[in-house]
């Protein structure tokens, strides 16, 4: 399964990872190799099989809908790159 440059660029965009022009050939090769390697999966008929997302097939455990955590915003924001009055700062989104 050989990927084209445009596909790799699209994947990188979806993954929000910048890829330089120099990087693209290497990643294209690596990703194509991996996809070729996993092609073996298609040699098997799985039409009658249920996918298994959890090794023990357990389901999500629920709890009662009540507040059990304290607000620790200030503690958690101590390690943020940029904060102001309790808000995380990022570059302007809307022009």
């Amino acid at each position, binding site marked *: 399964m050989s990927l084209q440059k445009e596909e790799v660029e699209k994947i990188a965009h979806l993954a929000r990872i*910048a890829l330089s022009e120099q990087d693209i050939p290497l990643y294209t090769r690596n990703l194509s190799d991996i996809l070729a390697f996993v092609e073996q*999966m298609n040699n*098997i008929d799985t039409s009658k099989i249920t996918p298994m997302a959890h090794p023990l097939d357990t389901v999500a455990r629920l709890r009662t809908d009540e507040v059990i955590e304290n607000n620790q915003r200030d503690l958690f924001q101590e390690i*943020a790159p940029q904060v102001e009055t309790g808000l995380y700062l990022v*570059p302007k*989104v809307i022009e």
Partner: protein
Amino acid sequence: MHTKTLTELGLGLHQRQFSSVELTQHFLQRIQDYDDQINSFITVTKEIALAQAQAADVCLQTGKTHPLTGIPIAHKDIFCTQGVKTSCGSKMLDNFIAPYNSTVIEKGSEVGLVMLGKTNMDEFAMGSSTETSYYGIVKNPWDIQAVPGGSSGGSAAALAARLTPLATGTDTGGSIRQPASLCGVTGLKPTYGLVSRYGMIAFASSLDQGGPMACHAQDVALLLNVMTGFDPRDSTSLNRPKEDYCVHLNDSLTGLKIGLPKEYFAEGLDAQVAQVLEVAIKELEKLGATLHEIHLPHNHLSVPIYYIIAPAECSSNLARYDGVRFGYRCEHPKDLMDLYKRTRAEGFGAEVKRRIMIGTYALSAGYYDAYYLQAQKIRRLIKEDFVKAFQEVDVIVGPVSPTPAFNIGEKVNDPITMYLSDIYTISVNLAGLPALSMPAGFVKQRPVGLQVMGNYFDEARLLNIAHRYQQCTSWHTMIPQGFA
């Protein structure tokens, strides 16, 4: 002190032959003297260790103790430690001081374990050689040209070099067992859900499991007792009655039925490794076990499906690293998209980026069914192979790694070759089963481990087998030259 078992150290502490402070200082000194040769630690927590040791000594005097009170431990740098750098081997978290403790760390503190530091690892636990860490490669104490294995290479190397008597690791595709094998130490991956993942930085949520590592199986059992237990903060944590994994350590192996998968002893396994394992398996026979050939017909698909499932899950788990709330942020972002893209391009290493991108592709519109869903279907087939096998045998025994430790740099530029070295360990993670690796000999002076895989929740039996084996062999007591 660094050659004693935990039982001997515990006795020494309780009988006041030495204090926890002295014991801790002994290991801190060894780390100082030897770690620059192997680079197994990212952070040494000297002040914390000494404070914890002092507190342990107070407990030891008043008699309010646990078998592991005052014993030093090294934690893989994937477990969040409050107030202490937790890097996951990545530039992305180089500046991350965890604001909370993971459950594993908390449980360790509760019984009085003394944290020596955080061990080096493949970046975000993605790797089989500990060559992808932002903090440099870890070297195998048995041969510094060789890798220690990964991703828990720092923990394994630190144990082998006797820089710590205990360590924690995590295992998503073999990352406890394979470095344990390559470094000549003992490591166990528990049944999925036994050890809480709260505060354990996530790589692939349906595969990750934290587990104990040590030089002796009985020490692994003692640490497993501490690490396990229901945790309401982990939605995949299992609520089962607490078990004592030491109780059956000395049980006889008479009548034990061992399954040997035909697929594991076929081509791809180094002939000398096969010979070492044959001798080890004979020892188990001498101890009373019987051998039976079994089949795991879908095993050859385990590596391909893992390299869809694990990257898919990691692409989701690593989406949180966006330079906004914590961790690395690129300089002078032009706009929000630039912030995300350059933070992630600069903060992540190549292997992590590869896996995120494969995962993104496999989950994207139009490809989800063909890749992720298909992989999860085959995953069920792999589990069913094991379920069938365990109807015939009690445990399954096999190699951990197709070769002993390879040389540093040998596979790092060839991802697929690196991935294929996980062929014997991955299926156990896919099925959620427990498995351990124990030292079984050497090939060209590099250690070789034997893997013992069990049915769900059969950790006590695996540890029993390892302990009985270690009572009549001495591979696990050997120390690499230069570190004695």
